[in-house]
């Protein structure tokens, strides 16, 4: 093998090594936008602002809160909202009411501080970031009532059509596919394979770099380490809308005479998990002795392991466990009968 051949081989093996390293940096995992932008409101009035969060990672973001840290001419009204949990690849909106003081006419820069946490296994990070966007306060005669205090009527967010961002990543992906096809085609037609190898190596490097930068290797790991029973065809998936309790089940639940806590373990992409969640919800609606909670296995791997839903290092969902009992119900097949048995009221 010539020397530059060896260099290329080394490069490829280097890329392989890169695959097996995780990125554990403390990076923000949320992206956000503010609506409306710019925010226009009369002096002395208040308007609703919506903050949209998108989670582009495989981790859950917790306790997302926003607070005003801009000039004193503005203040937020009411109790600040928080988003308790924002799951992997999900998005959510948080609204807050911003009031402008009477003498604040002009153009301002709104500044909101965003605070949230997320955990990778045992390591938890708190992220503090700020977001700026333009605010225009127009001159207005505020309405006054008898005692002279201003009334604050909140201007709701206008019906803003949320622009779906142009799918640049998909365009890039399509370009990459066309490049690969072109290079392979040229190699086939002209027999010039060396240039094809170099062309493919360039696409390869770009693809890997972008993929790792956007955390796709973590996504691959998340997909690989959690097994959703219906996904590989160990049982059939059913939507949550198909959940209905039989007469016998309702009667049996009525005989439940002790307090029971059920935990449903789920994953974001699991097709049959909503069915298991809905079934437990329905049972809890029938019997007030049942309390329940849903646990995302990506968020609580230790709890999942402690609850016995991990078989040979692989977390299996959906799984239902009853507090205090070692039994685990995997999957959704005959779930009603198996749940009744777990509750001790089965026939």
């Amino acid at each position, binding site marked *: *093998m*010539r020397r*530059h*051949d060896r260099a*290329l*081989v080394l490069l*490829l093996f280097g*890329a*392989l090594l890169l*695959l*097996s390293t995780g990125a554990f940096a403390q990076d923000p995992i949320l992206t956000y936008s503010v609506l409306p932008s710019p925010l226009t409101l009369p002096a002395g009035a208040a308007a609703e602002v919506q903050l949209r969060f998108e989670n582009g990672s495989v981790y859950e973001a917790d306790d997302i809160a926003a607070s005003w840290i801009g000039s004193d001419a503005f203040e937020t009204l009411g109790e600040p909202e928080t988003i308790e949990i924002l799951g992997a*690849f999900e998005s959510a909106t948080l609204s807050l009411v911003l009031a402008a003081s009477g003498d604040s006419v002009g153009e301002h820069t709104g500044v909101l501080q965003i605070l949230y946490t997320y955990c990778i296994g045992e390591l938890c990070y708190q992220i503090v970031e700020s977001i700026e966007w333009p605010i225009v306060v127009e001159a207005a005669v505020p309405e006054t009532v008898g005692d002279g205090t201003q009334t604050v009527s909140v201007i709701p967010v206008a019906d803003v059509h949320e622009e779906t961002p142009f799918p640049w*990543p*998909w365009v*890039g*992906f399509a370009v*990459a*596919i066309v490049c*690969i096809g072109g290079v*392979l085609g040229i*190699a*086939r037609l002209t*027999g010039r*394979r*060396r240039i*094809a*190898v170099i062309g*493919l*190596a360039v*696409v*390869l490097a770009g*693809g*890997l*770099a*972008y*993929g*790792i930068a*956007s955390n*796709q290797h973590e*996504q*691959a*790991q998340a*997909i*690989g*380490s959690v*097994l959703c029973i219906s*996904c*590989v*065809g*160990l*049982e*059939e998936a059913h939507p949550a809308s198909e959940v209905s309790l039989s007469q016998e089940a309702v009667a049996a639940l009525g005989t439940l005479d002790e307090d029971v806590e059920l935990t449903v373990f789920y994953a974001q*992409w699991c*097709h049959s998990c909503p069915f298991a969640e809905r079934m437990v919800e329905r049972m809890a609606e029938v019997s007030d002795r049942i309390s329940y909670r849903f646990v995302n296995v990506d968020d609580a791997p230790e709890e999942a392991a402690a609850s016995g839903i991990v*078989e*040979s290092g*692989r977390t*299996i969902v959906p799984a239902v466990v009853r507090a205090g009992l070692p039994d685990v119900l995997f*999957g959704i*097949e005959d779930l009603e009968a198996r749940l009744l048995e777990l509750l001790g009221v089965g026939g």
Partner: protein
Amino acid sequence: MKRLTATRRGTQALGLLFGLFGVTGIGITHVIFPGLHCYACPLAVTVCPIGLMQNLIVFGTPPYFWLGTILVYGLLAGRGFCGWFCPFGTLNDLLSFRKVRILRSLSFGKFFVLVGTVFAAWYFADTMFCKLCPAASIEASLPYLLLGVAKVNRPFIVHMATLGGTLIGMTLISRFWCRYLCPMGGLLALFNRVSLLHLRLDEDRCSSCGACATQCPMGLEPHLEHDDHNCIKCGACVEGCHLDALSLRYGLPKR
């Protein structure tokens, strides 16, 4: 056993170790396995390229990381991974009793399976191929039945049916799955001509005796089609050639 075959059995054992027996422990599943290998397998530590591809399509993620990894594998060895590493390929190998000629038109079937897998994942928003995959039958359905997680139900019977069909095919036609149906083989086949591992024919030495063709598990005629997309670069023909006209080489193509 000849030297190439002995080496190949070694790398195939490595494939089994890395793929099925979790030698590296859980935690590197962001490595995509270079072969058809169910990530649902209780001891799997890497993720199946075809399974991941379907999941990414379901999520709507443009699969850059996946594409980059497939290109790495394609350039490193192309379908060499089928012959030297893939656990399901190894099973095909062990059942290779009848090395019959390949049906060229049917060998494009794997590309149809690949395109069908992509389309079905998008259309049904589910991993449809996995529900039929014979590798999943062996590596997921059966182990989980023994572990008590899965039960004998309709999906299980479907899995056993595809596995049974594939096993019969493999026994009657060597590397039946690799020849005609494997979507991963289809993916790697795209890069077979440009991969660093390649089969070379020294035409001056070749007497066109066809001894290599009797050895090829893929049913090719290596002296006529040494860079075919069906070639898994296993080296059976190299060993079968009495004139040393064929050789496996590693490095950049000549031009």
